[in-house]
């Protein structure tokens, strides 16, 4: 899309839609919310859509024949369509979970369940001698479930290491991903260093050896156009709450033929075919993976979030964040005593900017920033191995979204300098 076609975001108008952004924190400081990587704020439109569901159409979906149940089911399935088309998928390939973490666990547990299933599910079965490959920069949500799968099955966990600049080291790609590899799981975009990983390179190798690929899209789907048709991965996981949607809903997208064959994870009502005391059969996907009364109002809210983002345009969102990221890298990177952790150029890089400030622990830094209304995250951001690898206990992370402004970046830089003055580490 050309510059002209794209045009900039009307951030001021967007901010009007987010009630929380007009509140103040601490001593009446305006809120500078720079923690969207952890969770995003919600526009009025999303909250209204969810409430409208509760006030007008609320019923248990897929379980009733009366009018409310019909309307609720229709709202739920229409939401699935909206969300599917937001990522270029068909709606029967979209499974609702409670968050991205459950989505990853769903695949990991389905794989160990395949081991005790009667059918021929070789594609999903793992055991001693088989390997699962992850990366050192994964969020715990895309690491611990695979550790646990290996523990349950006797498979081996291997991983790509990370360079000092926070990029994946792919030099041993062909060795790491080999004939024993059953699945490769990695983040589309790092939640700590912002790195956008080379999906094509990795999936190409995975395809050569017949390994499945799961992409953790928690930090990509909210921030850039993502099209599963173009990605050539097998599974995609993301959370609603990071993309203007409600809490309590996540998505697992999976290739139709894989979802069709995969054994269930959580079992119970609405995911069954027939139930006898001694055995049960399963419904088709996606229902097979959605046991119990689902989070229909949250699905409706998430669909409203997709509509909101689509209206703004994901290209525009990405371009806006790119601008913020460049500015932040420049402004924050220029402060004496501050070191950006991760790529210092806004190339193949999203808007999570982590850094360390000499002689000020992130907790202490975060405290000073908070005191000035600048809300960032401090710690290891659920990526402990990445921090250990980079030789850092903890970092401070600023992360952006469509409602952030260049002034927010300036407030961040100014607050860092204030912390340096407060702790006497710089003049």
């Amino acid at each position, binding site marked *: 899309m050309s510059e002209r076609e794209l045009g900039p975001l009307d951030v001021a108008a967007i901010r009007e839609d987010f009630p929380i952004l007009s509140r103040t924190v601490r001593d009446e400081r305006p809120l500078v919310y720079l923690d969207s990587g952890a969770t995003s704020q919600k526009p009025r439109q999303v909250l209204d859509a969810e409430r409208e569901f509760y006030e007008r159409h609320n019923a248990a979906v897929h379980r009733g024949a009366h009018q409310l149940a019909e309307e609720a*089911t229709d709202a739920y399935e229409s939401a699935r369509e909206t969300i599917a088309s937001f990522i270029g998928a068909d709606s029967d390939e979209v499974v609702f979970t409670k968050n991205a973490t459950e989505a990853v666990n769903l695949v990991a547990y389905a794989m160990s369940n395949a081991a005790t299933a009667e059918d021929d599910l070789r594609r999903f079965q793992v055991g001693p001698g088989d390997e699962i490959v992850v990366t050192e920069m994964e969020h715990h949500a895309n690491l611990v479930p695979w550790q646990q799968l290996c523990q349950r099955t006797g498979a081996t966990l291997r991983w790509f290491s990370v360079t000092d600049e926070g990029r994946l080291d792919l030099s041993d790609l062909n060795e790491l991903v080999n004939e024993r590899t059953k699945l490769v799981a990695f983040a589309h975009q790092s939640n700590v260093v912002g790195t956008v990983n080379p999906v094509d390179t990795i999936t190409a190798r995975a395809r050569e050896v017949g390994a499945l690929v799961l992409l953790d899209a928690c930090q990509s789907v909210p921030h850039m156009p993502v099209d599963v048709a173009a990605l050539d991965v097998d599974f995609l996981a993301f959370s609603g709450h990071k993309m203007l949607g409600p809490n309590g809903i996540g998505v697992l997208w999976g290739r139709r033929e894989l979802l069709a064959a995969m054994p269930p994870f959580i079992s119970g009502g609405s995911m069954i*075919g027939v139930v006898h005391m001694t055995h049960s059969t399963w419904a088709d996907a996606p229902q097979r993976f959605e046991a119990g009364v689902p989070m229909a109002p949250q699905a409706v809210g998430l669909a409203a979030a997709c509509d909101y983002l689509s209206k703004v345009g994901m290209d525009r969102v990405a371009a806006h964040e790119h601008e913020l990221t460049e500015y932040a890298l420049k402004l924050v990177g220029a402060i004496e005593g501050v070191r950006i952790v991760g790529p210092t150029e806004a190339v193949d890089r999203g808007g999570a900017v982590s850094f360390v400030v000499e002689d000020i622990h992130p907790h202490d830094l975060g405290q000073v920033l908070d005191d000035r209304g600048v809300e960032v995250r401090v710690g290891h951001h659920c990526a402990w191995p990445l921090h250990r690898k980079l030789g850092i206990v903890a970092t401070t992370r600023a992360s952006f979204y469509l409602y952030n402004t260049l002034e927010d970046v300036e407030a961040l830089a100014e607050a860092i300098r204030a912390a340096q003055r407060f702790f006497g580490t710089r003049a």
Partner: protein
Amino acid sequence: MQLDAMYQEIILDHYRNPHHKGLRDPHDAEAHHINPTCGDEVTLRVALTPASEGAGLDDEATVSDVSYEGMGCSISQASTSVLTDLLIGKSVAEGMRTLEAFTELMQSKGKGEPDEDVLEDAVAFVGVSKYPARIKCALLGWMAWKDAVSQSFEKEGA
């Protein structure tokens, strides 16, 4: 009262006096389908006759018999009864086209304008398509029929 639009006399007639009910032999294949939300079941058999002496079973084969047993609501029972009237004597290919027309009608949300030449009594189900939860009921027997036919073909091929 929208009920009359849904429960047209034709439907209630077929429900009260189902056609071709009861399982019969000979048959080429039998399919058993269940509606998981309500537990309604249908067991349906098809007997096919090759289009010509010595030919195999293909789309040109004639549906020489459809018989069934089942329990369920008026919609699922009547629609299976209508199915037998429509399909017995037709070729498999014609049967599949009828199935397609019926499925399309069911997805029309009450706005379908069914071709009475193709669907005959089945046009009466247009009202059902307004109630998403009932569409499965109307399709239960039809899905079993489709399944039984492809089983017949597979058996032959094996």
